[in-house]
């Protein structure tokens, strides 16, 4: 043997071995139980196609166990430590008069999750089979289901039936995967009913009830003596809560629906054909984006290889084919001769609920619209299938049906891009005039509108609380009160600094630190100090609230803050990122209390050059909390000479040098008019509105915050090159500047945009005689050309540049109370200086990148919500004013309108020139200018105009500020100047 081995190749040896093996192994095989309690071992075998087209057999182990318990309080058999399901599981129902547990099947969970979420539905068994199927089919529903399971009051129990010996079944030959799962659900239900039977005498006949909407499944369940009901049937039988019926999703197999209707839409292709089509290139996959202005038009945004992407235009109900905004769809391009141009017509779906006859009319309107503008044809296509629905509950209002007894009504979402939804409700009369939430259940091909169901009411439309709620929901701002779990991680009151807190912390209580903020600020993140050192240099400190001391990584409080991402400031309301105890008290660097801080301390010379930088955790005791105006007054008041004032003067002096130097390097100072409402202290209604005014002290604080952020960014990047959380601001692509260049050219001003510095310089010299406001307007336009600044993880990107600040590296360190990014930066910095320990997620660049995505999303949405809130309050303000009469400037020129900025209110409005009546004036639009000529008058950008401002509340969901032209006077277009008076009635708006 050995000789043979030596000569033979190893491979041949092994082949021989294997033959021997087969012979020797079969008679006797050992197996030993290890720590396993598993009793049986099954192999799961399935066949899978490989990438190369071959077929692969996959064998997986599947252990079956006897130690998976039923989770019922009533059970005395199972050796479970804790139970979830209650002994007296009572939901009063006409159908089930006994206590019972519910077992929903997969489709019931997927479609009726709103019902399952109702607090009334308790004691439900979620089978593993169901959970896995739900996970596979809908991520949002899966998440919601998991949330319910985690809620203790709901008593939802997950039974791992696939691994319990008695409830595991194998797929039979010829059985589909779905049928097998249905059978598994029935087997588990059967097991439960037999298991519970053992304790019948104890429990008033506790039973399990299977819920399924599948007729076949129901029948088979009945055959095996299970208690089984359709979901609707069961919910309707509940005595205590008849409203729950409204939350039932309409199932597509409702018989009454099918009988009368004809097919309106082409069939959606099955996923397999879509995938094949995408592979072969005949279909494109993209995100469906409905048009805000025209309900018969949408674009599909197709992400191509790398950076490039294309847009496919979709027009007409048939081609839109039931896709809803944000769905992922497959589109097929139409032949070139059917390509169309985007219509510039505003079309709103405002007809009453009709299923027939409507569409011909609609198509005609559309054709007329496209003929008018057949110049720039776009790739046009049609939706052939839906890859992924992206439905969420929508806010909106009910259009109550004209038929009094009808329970079916149309719902109009607040978001214009979402189609109207048909719902069934018995509470229509109560819901009319309220803002409500509705979820879509499906969109059958014979229905003009999608079907949905009522979720909940938000309150009366137009009421401030309701509108605020709508605004928060529509912008996906998490605004629920903090949960008990979150609050449990707050420090116990009364809180005081302990000796342990002082370890690795510097005592800076003796320093004259003060904070400067806007009036009424209660969440003070930052404080400053400046003092002269013995060597003649200056010591400047920026002290930031030490939030990461209170919010420890990974706990519920931290997770909540990470999810919220930012504090959202609405007019007169703040939605905190962290609970108030922290935001307004323990973290807030108020005066004359001891507070924990994270300090960045520089030694500078009098030319504001940094000689030394150090970071330390500290304790401070702020001597004064000032407003910008108070700080300004102290600096200007030569009679004052206390420490705080001296410190402020030193800071101010340095800040001016820093700012000058920054601007020399090419930092941009751009403009956006921010308005401030003076609120009535009792009603919280806006009583006055003014643009925010900037003082020297604003820029003083800003300058040091920038400096601290840059210093920290450099430090954490040096220390953690792979996982530093930074912020960048990409340079805008040159085409972004088109509008700015054209606008400037119209006044014979040249703007250079090759670099930030060139732009800043040319903006500085851009002046027009006799037009002092020109520069500000130009800067407002320049702001609109900019890109969004974003957070990113340094290990995932190579371009760090911050264009607007002209800094090679930047991050956010100075507002940890209201921004989560700053908390992460604090943690990184704390690790870098050895003041705190690290934790795994902090060093994981993929996790951090995912976090950045969430933060960027939350910041964007917060910004939109804030704008929407300003718009809403502006409307409230003008509602009480009647018609006003103001001067403004033309900011943009459009095909049929001019956009006017009213500097006094920082308000932008549109003056439309094409009314709905037939006598539309003669409009000529020139793209080069851009200019718009109406009859004899030509409008340019920057023209001074006079307009009336009023509130148009004809559509209660979409109240709007309307502007109408007074001066220049164009006959048939402009309106006479109204008598300004609060009693003035609403004018006719269109000419």
């Amino acid at each position, binding site marked *: *043997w050995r000789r043979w081995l030596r000569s033979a190749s190893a491979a041949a040896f092994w082949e021989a071995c294997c033959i021997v093996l087969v012979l020797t192994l079969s008679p006797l095989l050992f197996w030993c139980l290890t720590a*396993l309690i598993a009793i049986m071992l099954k192999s799961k075998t399935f066949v899978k196609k490989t990438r190369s087209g071959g077929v692969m057999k996959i064998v997986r182990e*599947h252990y079956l166990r006897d130690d998976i318990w039923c989770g019922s309080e009533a059970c005395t058999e199972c050796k479970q430590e804790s139970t979830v399901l209650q002994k007296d599981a009572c939901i009063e129902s006409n159908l089930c008069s006994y206590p019972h547990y519910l077992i929903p099947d997969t489709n019931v969970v997927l479609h009726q999750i709103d019902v399952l979420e109702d607090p009334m539905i308790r004691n439900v068994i979620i089978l593993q089979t169901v959970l896995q199927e739900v996970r596979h089919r809908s991520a949002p529903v899966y998440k919601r289901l998991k949330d319910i399971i985690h809620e203790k009051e709901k008593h939802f129990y997950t039974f791992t039936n696939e691994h319990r010996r008695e409830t595991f079944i194998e797929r039979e030959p010829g059985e589909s995967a779905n049928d097998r799962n249905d059978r598994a659900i029935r087997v588990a239900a059967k097991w439960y009913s037999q298991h519970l039977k053992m304790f019948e005498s104890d429990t008033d006949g506790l039973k399990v009830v299977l819920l399924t909407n599948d007729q076949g499944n129901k029948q088979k369940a009945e055959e095996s003596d299970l208690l089984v009901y359709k979901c609707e049937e069961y919910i309707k039988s509940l005595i205590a809560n008849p409203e729950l019926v409204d939350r039932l999703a309409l199932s597509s197999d409702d018989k009454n629906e099918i009988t009368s209707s004809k097919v309106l839409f082409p069939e959606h292709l099955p996923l397999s054909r879509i995938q094949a089509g995408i592979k072969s290139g005949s279909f494109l996959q993209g995100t469906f984006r409905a048009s805000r202005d025209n309900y018969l038009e949408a674009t599909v945004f197709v992400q191509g290889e790398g950076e490039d992407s294309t847009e496919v235009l979709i027009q007409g109900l048939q081609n839109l084919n039931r896709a809803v905004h944000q769905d992922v769809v497959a589109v097929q391009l139409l032949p070139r001769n059917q390509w169309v141009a985007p219509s510039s017509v505003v079309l709103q779906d405002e007809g009453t609920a009709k299923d027939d006859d409507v569409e011909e009319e609609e198509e005609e309107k559309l054709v007329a619209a496209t003929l008018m503008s057949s110049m720039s044809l776009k790739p046009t296509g049609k939706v052939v299938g839906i890859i992924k629905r992206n439905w969420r509950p929508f806010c909106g209002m009910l259009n109550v049906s004209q038929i009094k007894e009808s329970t079916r009504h149309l719902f109009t979402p607040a978001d214009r891009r979402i189609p109207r939804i048909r719902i069934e409700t018995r509470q229509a009369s109560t819901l009319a005039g309220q803002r409500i939430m509705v979820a879509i259940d499906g969109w059958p091909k014979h229905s003009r509108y999608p079907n949905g169901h009522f979720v909940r009411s938000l309150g009366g439309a137009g009421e401030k609380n309701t509108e605020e709620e709508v605004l928060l929901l529509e912008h996906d701002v998490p605004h629920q009160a903090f949960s008990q779990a979150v609050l449990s991680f707050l420090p116990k009151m009364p809180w005081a600094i302990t000796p342990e807190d002082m370890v690795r912390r510097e005592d800076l209580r003796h320093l004259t630190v003060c904070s400067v903020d806007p009036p009424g600020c209660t969440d003070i993140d930052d404080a400053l100090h400046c003092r002269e050192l013995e060597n003649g240099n200056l010591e400047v400190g920026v002290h930031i609230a030490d939030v990461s001391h209170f919010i420890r990584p990974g706990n519920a409080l931290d997770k909540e803050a990470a999810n919220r991402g930012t504090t959202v400031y609405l007019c007169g309301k703040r939605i905190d990122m962290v609970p108030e105890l922290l935001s307004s008290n323990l973290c807030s660097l108020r005066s004359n209390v001891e507070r924990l801080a994270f300090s960045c301390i520089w030694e500078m010379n009098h030319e504001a050059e940094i000689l030394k930088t150090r970071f330390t955790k500290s304790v401070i005791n702020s001597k004064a909390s000032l407003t910008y105006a108070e700080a300004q007054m102290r600096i200007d008041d030569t009679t004052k000479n206390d420490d705080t004032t001296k410190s402020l003067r030193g800071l101010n002096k340095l800040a001016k040098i820093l700012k000058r130097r920054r601007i020399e390097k090419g930092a941009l100072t751009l403009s956006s008019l921010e308005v401030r409402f003076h609120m009535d202290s009792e009603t919280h209604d806006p009583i006055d509105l003014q643009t925010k005014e900037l003082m020297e002290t604003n820029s003083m604080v800003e300058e040091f915050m920038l400096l601290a952020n840059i210093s920290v960014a450099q430090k954490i990047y040096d220390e953690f090159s792979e996982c530093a959380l930074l912020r960048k601001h990409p340079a805008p692509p040159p085409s972004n500047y088109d509008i700015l260049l054209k606008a400037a050219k119209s006044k014979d001003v040249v703007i250079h945009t090759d670099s930030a510095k060139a732009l800043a310089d040319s903006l500085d010299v851009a002046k027009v005689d006799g037009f002092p406001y020109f520069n500000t307007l130009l800067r407002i336009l320049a702001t609109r050309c900019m890109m969004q600044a974003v957070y990113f993880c340094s290990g995932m990107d190579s371009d760090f540049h911050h264009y607007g600040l002209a800094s090679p590296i930047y991050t956010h360190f100075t507002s940890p109370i209201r921004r989560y990014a700053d908390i992460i930066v604090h943690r990184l910095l704390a690790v870098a200086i050895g003041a705190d320990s690290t934790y795994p997620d902090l060093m994981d660049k993929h996790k951090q990148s995912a976090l950045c995505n969430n933060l960027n999303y939350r910041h964007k949405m917060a910004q939109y919500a804030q704008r929407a809130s300003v718009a809403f309050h502006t409307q409230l303000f003008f509602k009480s004013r009647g018609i006003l009469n103001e001067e403004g400037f033309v900011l943009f020129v459009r095909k049929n309108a001019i956009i006017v900025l009213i500097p006094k209110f920082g308000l932008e409005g549109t003056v439309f020139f094409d009314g709905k009546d037939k006598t539309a004036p003669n409009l000529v639009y020139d793209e080069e200018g851009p200019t718009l000529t109406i009859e004899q008058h030509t409008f340019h950008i920057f023209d001074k105009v006079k307009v009336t401002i009023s509130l148009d509340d004809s559509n209660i969901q979409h109240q709007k500020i309307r502007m109408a032209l007074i001066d220049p006077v164009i006959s048939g277009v402009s309106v006479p100047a109204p008598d300004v008076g609060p009693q003035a009635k609403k004018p006719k708006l269109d000419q």
Partner: protein
Amino acid sequence: MAGLELLSDQGYRLDGRKATELRKVQARMGVFAQADGSAYLEQGNTKALAVVYGPHEMRGSRSRTLHDRAVINCQYSMATFSTAERKRRPHGDRKSTEMSLHLKQTFEAAVMTQLYPRSQIDIYVKILQSDGGNYSVCVNAATLAVIDAGIPMRDYVCACTVGFVDETPLADLCYAEESGGVSSLALALLPRGGQIALLQMDARLHQDHLETLIEAAMTACKGVSKVLDEVVRQHLQEVSVLTGE
């Protein structure tokens, strides 16, 4: 679609095991009469055959001879049919060379080589079916083969892979778990003294977790050693019955 859920909220893994549970281990010694020692071992669906020759005189290049102890020569290979996709595996590719080296290091730490100066011990291991934890299964199979060959060892060498999911260490990973993006670690232990013969990890893992992970791996290895011990005792009983002693 999201990847597989490796650990459910109820604490069960894909195949129904709990986090600390090993796969079922089945083993048999002396499967191959012509060799000095041999063993066949299954750990779940990972199956390995180990054969030991020696100690015998140095073969091949004499320069490798060590004057104070025996040289251990390990060879690891995988059968073409061992994975789901049939693949020709050239002898001595990078992966198997590396694995051979790891095995060699492991057994140099366990076998009392100083008893056999100037000689050589050959350990050949082949994976017949692969379903995760190849290294560990090879070590466990080879341990039995070495015992079968009657070569003295300091202790059983038991190996186990451990992965880290949702802050929980998972013992004895199967292939689906290994390929699910888990940071895993392979550990070979001399259980009685608690000495580590080999520790291998090439995934990123935060330092804070390392200790828990090693702890879990050691517990798992001790579990394996119990099984191996039982196998050896059973085998001895059979042999003694056969020889009539």
